[in-house]
């Protein structure tokens, strides 16, 4: 019988069938090993990919511009005739060269073939002065030898004959082809600005020293869509300086008369009939002189190129007396040769320079970046123009060639300094940290400073930690050390339940219930901070005076239950103190008192609301980890201390806390990490204004809330988009760092416990 089984077993466990089964099993096992390893590793990599993806998106922000030569060809038209302006289409296909003799030569930008040739309707006069009215609209003004001026605009038409995209340049004359009569003699200097319905022009006649200003109103004509000008006001005055440049800014109110050496008269044209000299200033240091001067995009900042190779940016700034004064903002330097010309971008505050030595330089003003620099032609350059989408430049050499370059320079407006340092933005009174990512106007200077957001993030986290840490740590101490097991069993999950509450609900309650309530009962909330601790103290002391029989009803481990109604009543009492307190100390309304008597700004959704609401959300994180650390302190240490006669609190302070301090530290770190990243509560209850103010009664905007607000509408792969990713990366790195720190500290502590 036994042998029979053995034989059966033998038969089953040997033979090809069995071998095959084993083989299949082993194959499955091996397959699974590789499969699981592969799957596991890919999941882990995918998860870790997040960080690399953030870096991948952010990285292009800090790359320099790349400039590549695209084409070279001979200058279309006469080389003797000086170039005044190049109008270039957005597709980089064609351009029109405006020359001093009034020639308009349209040519292909890839090969230099001339497409069109015409000339300005000058009525036999000569161009004696030239001014750019609006660079992004390609609007130009010409002052003529017969005292008239002509406004012309470059435009282009896209057509598709035979399904081939063809771009044809077009020249428009918004005020008609007839030059507008203005002065008697030739106009040697002109500055002209245009708004929807008015036109202001400042000019100087040849041979005269006076400056004339005239304003016109523009009305659309009945016959065609051209505009009719009718004169409205004029003035004439004697400048204090030897005028070399006449510049009128985009607001049509500020007129700058600049001499060769940089002496400047700053006139206010608010009243066109009586221009007011408000400042006389020298734009340059001694023994330097101006080689070229123009406005940056937006026609607010003056860009001054000098003989010594500097570029200075000046703009009017309101001083303490509310008077605008020209002020030097920043300077750029690239070469030692005189700056020959400055060209500006059409949509950003970027500019390019060429110098006498033939060097080309690319800058961005707000971010103060020097993006590229190279020598083009040692014989020198005569003209530079940036293409409308800032994706190319056109250079004209003195030897009669045109060079075009492709430029990749998407993120010029962001630099480390503009992200983290103070930047003096146009129209601001001083350098500041500002976040203002978008605006309706097209020549808007984006203000992408991370400082207010980082500040807001830390402010929100710190105020909420102020509320959460004491409560969470004290609660952890009691729960771990004093509380009896039975109570602990339900108390711990109850406190941890907070973690499960969706933050959107906490945010909603904070924003729509707590914030208005706090505003109405401000002194009540402050009373809580005093009434509750004092009340607890008195109650505790009173309890110790009670007869033993009553005291023993509630053992030390159940005091929490006793305190629940006490705390509730104390809170209620403090809130009911609100009215009497406000009446006694704050004339009946603390909020009113704060704003008008104490001069403290008050927002309904402020840091105090955030402190309470987010602090509440942080309690379980801190509590849970700290409680764990305290609870796991080896029992014999405690017993030893108690046996030596220490009271239970003395044991707590002398033995348990020092042993568990790393755990408590990591609990606080974890809480801080969570506070930094919390989004919904801050989004809903902080007001979201990017302020930098520690005031507890004012709101803030945090990095995370800013992401939630702006991410969806940021244009993909724009600077704004990448800066938002940068703030995401900052959040990631920040929380990752704090969490790792906490984790390492805890790991150490665990090892210490196991060795004790």
């Amino acid at each position, binding site marked *: 019988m036994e042998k029979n089984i053995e034989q059966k077993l033998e038969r089953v466990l040997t033979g090809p069938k069995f071998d095959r089964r084993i083989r299949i099993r082993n194959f499955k096992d091996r397959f699974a090993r590789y499969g699981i390893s592969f799957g596991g590793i890919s999941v882990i990599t995918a998860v870790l990919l997040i960080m690399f993806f953030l870096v991948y998106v952010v990285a292009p922000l800090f790359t320099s511009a790349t400039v590549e030569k695209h084409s070279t060809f001979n200058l279309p038209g006469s080389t003797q005739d000086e170039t005044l302006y190049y109008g270039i289409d957005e597709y980089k296909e064609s351009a029109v060269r405006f020359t001093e003799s009034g020639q308009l030569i349209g040519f292909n930008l890839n090969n230099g073939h001339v497409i069109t040739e015409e000339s300005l309707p000058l009525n036999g006069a000569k161009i004696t002065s030239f001014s750019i009215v609006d660079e992004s609209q390609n609007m130009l003004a010409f002052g003529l030898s017969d005292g008239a001026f002509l406004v012309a605009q470059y435009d282009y038409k896209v057509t598709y004959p035979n399904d081939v995209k063809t771009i044809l340049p077009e020249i428009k004359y918004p005020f008609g082809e007839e030059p507008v009569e203005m002065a008697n003699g030739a106009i040697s200097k002109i500055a002209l600005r245009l708004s929807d319905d008015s036109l202001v022009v400042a000019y100087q006649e040849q041979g005269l020293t006076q400056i004339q200003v005239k304003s016109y109103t523009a009305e659309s004509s009945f016959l065609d869509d051209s505009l009719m000008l009718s004169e409205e006001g004029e003035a004439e005055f004697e400048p204090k300086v030897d005028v070399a440049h006449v510049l009128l800014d985009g607001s049509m109110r500020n007129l700058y008369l600049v001499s060769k050496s940089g002496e400047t008269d700053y006139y206010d044209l608010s009243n066109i009939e009586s221009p007011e000299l408000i400042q006389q200033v020298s734009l340059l240091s001694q023994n330097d002189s101006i080689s070229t001067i123009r406005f940056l995009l937006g026609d607010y900042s003056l860009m001054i190129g000098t003989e010594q190779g500097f570029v200075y940016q000046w703009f009017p700034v309101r001083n303490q007396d509310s008077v605008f004064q020209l002020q030097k903002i920043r300077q750029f330097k690239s070469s030692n040769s005189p700056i020959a010309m400055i060209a500006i971008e059409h949509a950003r505050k970027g500019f390019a320079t060429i110098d006498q030595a033939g060097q080309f330089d690319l800058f961005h003003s707000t971010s103060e970046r020097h993006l590229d620099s190279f020598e083009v032609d040692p014989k020198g350059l005569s003209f530079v123009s940036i293409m409308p989408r800032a994706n190319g430049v056109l250079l004209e050499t003195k030897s009669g060639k045109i060079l075009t370059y492709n430029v990749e320079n998407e993120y010029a407006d962001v630099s480390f300094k503009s992200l983290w340092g103070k930047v003096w933005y146009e129209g601001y009174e001083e350098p500041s940290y500002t976040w203002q990512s978008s605006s309706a106007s097209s020549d808007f200077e984006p203000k992408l400073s991370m400082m207010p957001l980082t500040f807001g993030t830390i402010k929100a986290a710190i105020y909420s930690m102020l509320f959460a840490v004491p409560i969470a740590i004290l609660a952890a101490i009691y729960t771990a050390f004093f509380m009896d097991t039975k109570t602990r069993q339900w108390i711990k999950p109850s406190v941890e339940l907070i973690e499960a509450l969706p933050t959107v609900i906490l945010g909603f309650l904070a924003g729509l219930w707590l914030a208005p309530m706090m505003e109405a009962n401000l002194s009540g909330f402050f009373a809580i901070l005093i009434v509750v601790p004092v009340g607890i*103290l008195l109650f505790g002391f009173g309890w110790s005076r009670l007869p033993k029989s009553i005291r023993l009803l509630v053992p030390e481990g159940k005091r929490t239950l006793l305190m629940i109604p006490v705390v509730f009543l104390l809170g209620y009492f403090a809130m009911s103190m609100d009215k009497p307190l406000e009446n006694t100390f704050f004339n009946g309304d603390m909020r009113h008192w704060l704003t008008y008597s104490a001069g403290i700004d008050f927002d309904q959704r402020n840091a105090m609301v955030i402190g309470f609401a987010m602090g509440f959300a942080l309690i379980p994180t801190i509590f849970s980890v700290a409680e764990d650390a305290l609870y796991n302190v080896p029992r014999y240490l405690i017993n030893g201390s108690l046996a030596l006669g220490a009271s239970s609190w003395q044991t707590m302070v002398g033995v348990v806390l020092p042993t568990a301090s790393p755990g408590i530290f990591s609990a606080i770190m974890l809480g801080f990490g969570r506070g930094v990243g919390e989004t919904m509560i801050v989004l809903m209850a902080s007001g979201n204004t990017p302020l930098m103010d520690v005031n507890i009664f004012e709101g803030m905007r945090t990095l995370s809330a800013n992401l939630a607000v702006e991410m969806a509408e940021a244009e993909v792969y724009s600077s704004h988009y990448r800066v938002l990713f940068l703030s995401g990366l900052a959040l990631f790195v920040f929380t990752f760092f704090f969490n790792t720190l906490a984790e390492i500290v805890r790991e150490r502590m665990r090892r210490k416990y196991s060795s004790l």
Partner: protein
Amino acid sequence: MKSWFNKGEHWIWFSASAVSISVVLVFGLLAMIAYKGLLHFWPHNVYDYQVSHSNGQIEQVVGELHDTKLKLVVDEEDSTIVHEVPEYLIKTGNRDVYGIDFKWINSRDLNEGATTVADKITVIERYQWGNVYGYLESLTVNGETIATGEEVEPVLQDLAEKGTALHEKIHHIEKTVMGGINYKIEALRLEQKKLESEDEYDAKTEAEFETKRAALNKEFVELQASMQILHDKADSLGEVTLTIAGNQKITVKIKQVVRFWQPNNMSLLSKVGFFFSSIGNFLTEDPREANTEGGVFPAIVGTVTMVLLMTILVTPMGVLAAIYMSEYAKDGPVLRLVRISINNLAGVPSIVFGIFGLGFFVYILGGSIDDLFYGYAAPSPVFGTPGLLWASLTMALLTLPVVIVSTQEGLSRIPRSLREGGLALGATKLETITRIVLPMATPAIMTGLILAIARAAGEVAPLMLVGVVKLAPALPIDFNAPFIHLENKFMHLGFHIYDVGFQSPNVEASQPLVYATSLLLVVIIVSLNLGAIMIRNRLRERYKSLGN
């Protein structure tokens, strides 16, 4: 006393109170949400206030009392005395007549004893323009008055039920049947575009498409005709005229009536009945009036679909990674580093996952999918825009650390002896894992999953970027093949709270609804969490016996 302080007794009291404060806060909060949320469903009494104005006129204000605030008024004779005067926020309804739903009245302006419970007042909930508060006057059908005064109520009851039935029918045809046809027509259009882009759209297929389209269009027109009949039927139900405060008359078409009730004349039992039917409506109806009225059904469906999809995605990923890390990977500094990193990912702000989802899933992955497969649909994106799939994937990534950590913990709790036993009996490693280790770790995996689901259900910030919208035109799951539409945008309970609470034009009116939605979300999440805790406790007991 000194010794009391020396012994640190006061600190023990403080620490005990800190626990109490936390407990009071948690349960206070939950109680408040529950109270305010449930209050939304209860039929409130409607009061009649007589407000006298400074010019001697007396205005009648009828409505529900919503809020009371104390306003400080300086005494007219002695400016040092400040009186507290209660002000009442009254929901007066009748938005189409008054312009707004709410009115503040000052208790000082109330005529003495003029606050009465309005007898026989009727509240009508309408599909548009909110509630009507008024006294039933008459009921006309086709210009004929068929009931006046006391008789109106039973007739109205009857007609309103008919109206509701019709409304449901119309709604069904509109959403499901017509929606289905529209879906097919759209699919046909895309199919044609696709063929055109591949140059395979010849005359034969064109004819085929045309017949299909004609058939669908015909069906559509027929449906429209039958809809018209239903609409006419609904129109012919008649209209009811009510007298509202200020002796104005308001006429409400029966087809506009969602339901009506007379709160002041309801018995407690019928109030309870109303309460539960309100809850039912809230859970099953579509939102109305820019989400500020009606139910949250699409948001529930959206949340559940997203969470289920996320669970399907996160389970294999999380379990696989955890098994690899604890069973296969070689222990060493690299593994420790990976483990810490994954642990820490759980603490990375959710919004960071949101921007990752938007930047990577939507723009890069979705964009590539569109380029590869949906080039014919350009320029309108299919997957290159936020949607259900990307939201679920983002949430899966967000909750992955939770699942991995929890599964790993479960795996590490299984005694080594069990694995060794399995191996010693000749089982391969795979067999040991699938037959012994995994079944025993199921509770841990379940715990992890439930926690993940709870987190995903409550998380809003990342979803705002990757697919949640305030009002989705269609549900993400319906009866049109393929039944689940991964590219659709969807609604979500959490976002609903944010949107209605903060973005709606009528915050005051919608607050009760937000409380109700919050309550629903809290109930879902707290019960999920309690489930996880129970499973965890049971699991611990099980291994306690194993350990011995």
